[in-house]
């Protein structure tokens, strides 16, 4: 959620600077991903609001209340500032015919002028990355980013008889949505209908039937609240993601609707002082019940592993304006309507823990009376691995997916939809790959193994697979470990892991051999030195002595040098030139290059 620093500050004037505020939010609430300084002078904090707070924090007022409580600084409640003219009797009728609509609040406003928005509205929307459209549409967007409540405005004169029906679609109806997209409603999707049964708008996006125009004079303000699961399904099926839909999906409290209507009315009254307001129609079939929650200071302390006093808890509850009673360390609170996340004692432990800060937790190792046993499968895997390593096999891991097999996944981001029935196929590929790199690895005979799971219909089994270019063997882990001593016990191994990983070049290598006859008193290292000095900086491996023999008072040394670049593919020509230079230098020593 993007939060405008200036917008937030209008509610909580004492907030620290954006950077500092960002840190406080990250450590006590949710991760601040970025803080962007805008050209208009504002800063925007992009906050990854956690799913359990998305119902009350996807808004500036929500964040402002949270930050004010967290930092114990003043929150300027805007409610008393909102001025809506006295309303008159209305002809508007709304009927809710589905329990997927939890509340529907609407009113008629007459005599509005559709025109550009005032500067403050344009700036606020700009900070949200939104374009200003006109004063009426902007008011609905401001409302959503301000208090989190989605809303719609229709042209009253396009709604027959001022009658509205909220129900689920029987399926198959076509609707043109704002922005010109045509969609077909499926059964059980939430929509708003006129008296003739034409859908005016869906639960997540408005339609063109009663769309505002520049000439619109009379409007219907609509504040709704829909079932989160129904909205999510609908949104997925229609392939439409809207800011409003996102808020419904996160279980918005229907208690917010009346506030939303107050704020939206006030915004329109401010922008269209000439408008007249009619009475609010409020359909709220099942009122959200007030919940109570009990917890104790002792349990909260036990969960956190931190001694939290009654006074500390009382302080937090007061800051968060949570009504409570306390008796000998046992608390009962009245859960604020917007705090749907506070359900059980553990939720209060989290609330208290995060407000105090998890840096307050002492790091004390647990003392529990548990006697661990050796895991026999892991013992076998370790034994098998160590045996193969000792026998000169190196370990690889290949993919569990294959082109064919007995177990298939329903859907995959890759073209391999089956689980492997053996490791051998992957291991053979790996042998081929490594055999091609043999000069780089400094060995002619690649020996590798993998220990992993293979999948047959209805069963999975751990296999051990090992081999070289001639032969690959695959057996079950159990079979491989037939000779494992029955009293085998895992011993700690000390690994040298300080080494830094070196990425290899992604360009092909070129290997060259050079053999030299030298007087028998000349050591191989002396020859290697001359080669090294003249082979340039593209040497990836070597010079490595791979052959040596003596004849008639002379020694023949054969070296292998592997060239490879991190930046490009080397050519034969340039490597030939390097080797010519090396040969020339060796000859200068009066050594005979074969």
């Amino acid at each position, binding site marked *: 959620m993007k939060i405008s620093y200036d917008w937030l500050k209008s509610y909580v004037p004492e907030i620290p600077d954006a950077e500092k505020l960002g840190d406080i939010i990250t450590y006590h609430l949710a991760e601040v991903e970025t803080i962007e300084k805008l050209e208009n002078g504002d800063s925007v904090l992009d906050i990854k609001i956690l799913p359990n707070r998305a119902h009350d924090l996807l808004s500036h007022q929500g964040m402002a209340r949270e930050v004010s409580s967290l930092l114990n600084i003043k929150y300027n409640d805007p409610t008393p500032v909102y001025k809506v003219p006295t309303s008159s009797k209305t002809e508007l009728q709304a009927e809710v015919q589905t329990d997927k609509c939890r509340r529907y609040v609407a009113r008629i406003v007459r005599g509005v002028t559709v025109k550009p928005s005032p500067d403050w509205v344009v700036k606020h929307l700009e900070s949200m990355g939104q374009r200003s459209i006109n004063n009426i549409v902007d008011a609905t967007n401001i409302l959503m980013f301000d208090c989190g409540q989605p809303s719609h405005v229709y042209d009253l004169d396009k709604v027959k008889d001022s009658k509205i029906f909220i129900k689920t679609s029987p399926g198959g109806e076509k609707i043109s949505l704002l922005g010109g997209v045509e969609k077909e409603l499926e059964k059980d999707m939430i929509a708003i209908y006129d008296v003739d049964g034409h859908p005016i708008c869906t639960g997540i996006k408005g339609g063109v039937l009663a769309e505002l125009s520049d000439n619109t004079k009379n409007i219907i303000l609509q504040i709704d609240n829909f079932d989160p699961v129904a909205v999510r399904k609908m949104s997925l099926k229609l392939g439409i993601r809207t800011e409003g839909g996102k808020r419904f999906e996160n279980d918005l409290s229907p208690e917010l609707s009346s506030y939303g209507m107050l704020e939206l009315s006030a915004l329109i009254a401010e922008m269209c002082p000439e408008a007249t307001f009619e009475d609010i129609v409020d359909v709220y079939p099942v009122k959200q019940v007030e919940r109570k929650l009990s917890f104790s200071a002792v349990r909260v302390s036990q969960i956190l592993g931190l001694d939290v006093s009654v006074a500390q808890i009382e302080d937090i509850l007061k800051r968060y304006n949570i009504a409570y009673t306390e008796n000998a360390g046992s608390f009962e609170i009245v859960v604020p309507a917007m705090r749907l996340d506070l359900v059980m004692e553990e939720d209060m432990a989290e609330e208290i823990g995060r407000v105090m800060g998890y840096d307050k937790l002492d790091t004390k190792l647990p003392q529990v009376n*548990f006697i661990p046993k050796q895991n026999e499968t892991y013992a076998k895997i370790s034994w098998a691995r160590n045996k193969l390593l000792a026998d000169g096999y190196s*370990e690889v891991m290949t993919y569990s997916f294959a082109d064919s097999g007995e177990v298939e996944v329903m859907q995959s981001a890759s073209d391999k939809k089956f689980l492997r029935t053996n490791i051998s196929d992957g291991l053979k590929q790996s042998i081929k790959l490594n055999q091609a790199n043999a000069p780089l690895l400094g060995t002619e005979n690649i020996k590798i193994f993998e220990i992993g799971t293979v999948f047959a219909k209805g069963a999975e089994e751990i296999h051990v697979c090992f081999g070289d270019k001639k032969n690959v063997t695959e057996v079950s882990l159990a079979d491989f470990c037939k000779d494992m001593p029955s009293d085998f016990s895992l011993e700690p191994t000390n690994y040298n892991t300080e080494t830094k*990983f070196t990425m290899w070049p992604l360009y092909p290598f070129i290997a060259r051999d050079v053999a030299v006859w030298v007087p028998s008193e000349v050591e191989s290292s002396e020859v290697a030195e001359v080669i090294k000095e003249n082979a340039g900086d593209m040497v990836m491996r070597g010079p490595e002595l791979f052959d040596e023999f003596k004849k008639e008072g002379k020694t023949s040394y054969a070296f292998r040098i592997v060239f490879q670049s991190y930046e490009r593919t080397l050519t034969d020509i340039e490597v030939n030139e390097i080797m010519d230079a090396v040969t020339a230098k060796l000859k200068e020593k009066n050594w005979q290059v074969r």
Partner: protein
Amino acid sequence: MNSEEKTAEKKSGRIHPLSLLADEAYQAFSEMGFEVALGPELESEWYNFDVLNVAKDHPARDMQDTFWIKGSEGDAHNKKVLRTHTTSVTARATEKGAKEGRMPSAFISIGKVFRNEATDATHEMQFFQIDGSMIGTVEDGVSLANMKAVLTKFYKKMLGENTEIEFRPSFFPFTEPSIEVFAKFKGKWLEMMGGGMTNPAVIRNMGLDPNKVQGFCFGGGLDRIAMVKWGVPDVRLFYQGDLRLNQF
């Protein structure tokens, strides 16, 4: 390199870096009283999702994110997925342990997990996850502070004595409170794991009474530790079968 070293190198093979890291991690947790737990890679919907209090309509259950197995139908115990974490393994171990009267208990599980996603330098369809769980009676008082101590010791062992860790607020269906674990490595805070106090719903799903037992659980990528510790630039390198990876 002298010829003696050359013979030694020829004699013994080289371990895969993730096996090395897993073994080191197991050793670190064993020293703190954890028992190694292993479990199936093909997991039931029940242990992969339901036990962990993942809502029926949670997006993690979507086919776009999870590999569901064709032809596995019926209830949550029969429907199969490729496990998306190894929390399923520690949950199985804790449940089994409790039935055998092993309470308190502490399990650590490292294993291959699967996510149906497009691969890039930091995402793979298969990778290794490390998951741990410690649970005890309310009197044992296994707490969030205990988890911080355990993970501090673990990351010091894995990334060096100077490593610091911190908890930041988070949310997971299987924990309450939930936290994100960050480790400070070479002056930078890096996100390493998620965890928290095991949600009472999870405790209930494992057949235990949340009024009587409490504990913590955590989980995160092993590949991630390898990439941070050694500077391996691309997660896909671990599964290419290329021996140039085996540098340790």
